[in-house]
């Protein structure tokens, strides 16, 4: 009996200690993986390895798989903003985006503005591709638009331009200082990739508002968050550090990888 009691005491003591260790262990793991923790930098070093390795194996021209009409998802999920409530955007939407202009500037020889009609008058590319969300789901859709490379050839990037920053009309997080506005950035390898298009049509229809009307970027070798919707402005820059919180995009500022190929 005494033995039994001892054993029970030992077991409950052991369970308390083990449980306590597990709990404080979880707390510790939460602490060291927080955005501003030093250990976070160690974890995040994997991103450089992934980017370097993928860039090594991916030739600039290797294409994402293109599908057939039969593969198109009957329902293409819309994530993030689905209807920007910015009054300026709403006014343009009410007018069928007739007054909308894409501004392309920054480190370029000739800053230019493009209306939807201008973009539609340029040579187009149509592709049926798989859209992969960072959450894990995939949808297949048909996109038509102008290759970003064609636009960049017109404005001519200056040699010091290394990245393109895309500014969007939607505020995905409501803030007072505009830090919740969606933006993204890409390096030139992806900007000049043949499948990188500024899409104005989706599934043979005008791009719907839920999917980023009037213009959404498609970068087919990357995850969905690297393909901003409601694109208003493209700036060529040497570094994206001065935009947003400096990590290269809305989601990057919230801890996601800048290299969105994985």
């Amino acid at each position, binding site marked *: 009996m005494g033995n039994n009691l001892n054993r029970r005491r030992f077991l409950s003591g052991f369970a308390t200690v083990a449980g306590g260790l597990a709990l404080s262990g979880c707390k510790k793991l939460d602490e060291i*993986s927080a955005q501003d923790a030093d250990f976070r930098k160690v974890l995040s070093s994997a991103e450089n390895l992934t980017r370097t390795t993928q860039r090594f194996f991916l030739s600039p021209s290797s294409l994402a798989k293109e599908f057939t009409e039969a593969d198109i998802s009957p329902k293409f999920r819309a994530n993030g903003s689905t209807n920007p409530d910015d009054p300026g955007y709403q006014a343009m939407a009410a007018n069928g985006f007739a007054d909308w202009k894409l501004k392309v500037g920054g480190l370029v020889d000739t800053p230019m503005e493009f209306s939807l009609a201008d973009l539609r008058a340029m040579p187009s590319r149509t592709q049926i591709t798989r859209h992969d969300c*960072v959450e894990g789901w995939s949808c297949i859709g048909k996109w038509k638009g102008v290759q970003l490379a064609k636009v960049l050839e017109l404005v001519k990037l200056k040699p010091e331009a290394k990245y393109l920053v895309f500014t969007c009309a939607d505020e995905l997080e409501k803030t007072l200082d505009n830090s919740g506005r969606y933006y993204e950035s890409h390096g030139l390898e992806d900007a000049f990739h043949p499948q990188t298009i500024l899409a104005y049509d989706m599934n043979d229809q005008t791009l719907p508002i839920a999917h980023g009307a009037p213009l959404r970027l498609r970068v087919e070798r990357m995850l969905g968050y690297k393909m901003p919707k409601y694109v208003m402005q493209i700036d060529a820059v040497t570094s994206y550090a001065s935009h947003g919180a400096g990590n290269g995009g809305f989601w990057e500022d919230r801890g996601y990888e800048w290299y969105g190929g994985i």
Partner: protein
Amino acid sequence: MSATALETKPRKVFVYRHTVLVRIAHWINVVCIAFLLMSGMQIFNARPDLYWGQKSDFEHPILSMRARSTDQGPVGETTIFGHAFNTTGVLGLSTVDGQLAARGFPAWATVPSYQDLATGRRWHFFFAWIFVITGLVYLISSLINRHVWRDLLPSREQLRHIGPTIWHHMKLKFPHERDYNVLQKGTYLIMIFVVLPLVVLAGLAMSPGVDAGFPWLIDLFGGRQTARTIHFICATLIVLFIVVHVLLVLVSGVWNNLRSMITGRYRIDEEAAHGQ
């Protein structure tokens, strides 16, 4: 010395069982797999559904862990091929800081404990790299130093005696020999050459960058959503392996097993020593 003396005080016979590479790889894997599983569940929680094929058929996931409101309050439901199971408290709906929350896997199983896909991915890819590099070093050297043939491929003799070995396991009787028994060898071979490579390849097939560079990989699986589901199934098999592995370590001489995986030295039964 007489035979009786030997019987009363058995001589301890040690063999060198695990090379330093096996031991190091084993403990690196313990850490990597623990974090890969916990961060994997965090990532799964961002979309606690599984689908089959190239794209997600949102109305018909083959598995999902969701919370649903009923007249009696919210319940956690795990649905597999359309069959729903009430898993309230663990899957679909569980308590986070005293509050009921809709989440696939519970907070105690994920890293970080709170819902944070971005951080889960950071943990996952960091340990995935270490896991893959360790695995490659292990595989290549095991082929070169013939560890695979010497220690992992069962002998004809062992295969012939698979019946008695199974019987021993069922009676929880484990003869301590230098070599792994035939069931161990079979399990390790399946893990090393099927499940672990498959979990890595299925993981890679989910990367749109990898898919553009190596289109055959995603074709091998038949679609990104299939790859995601196979990744999940492999992870489940790994958990199953760990449970059985740890239980068998506990019942077949925990200190002997632990010592051999730390120092390499394993104590074998004397009959086995004589047998050699």
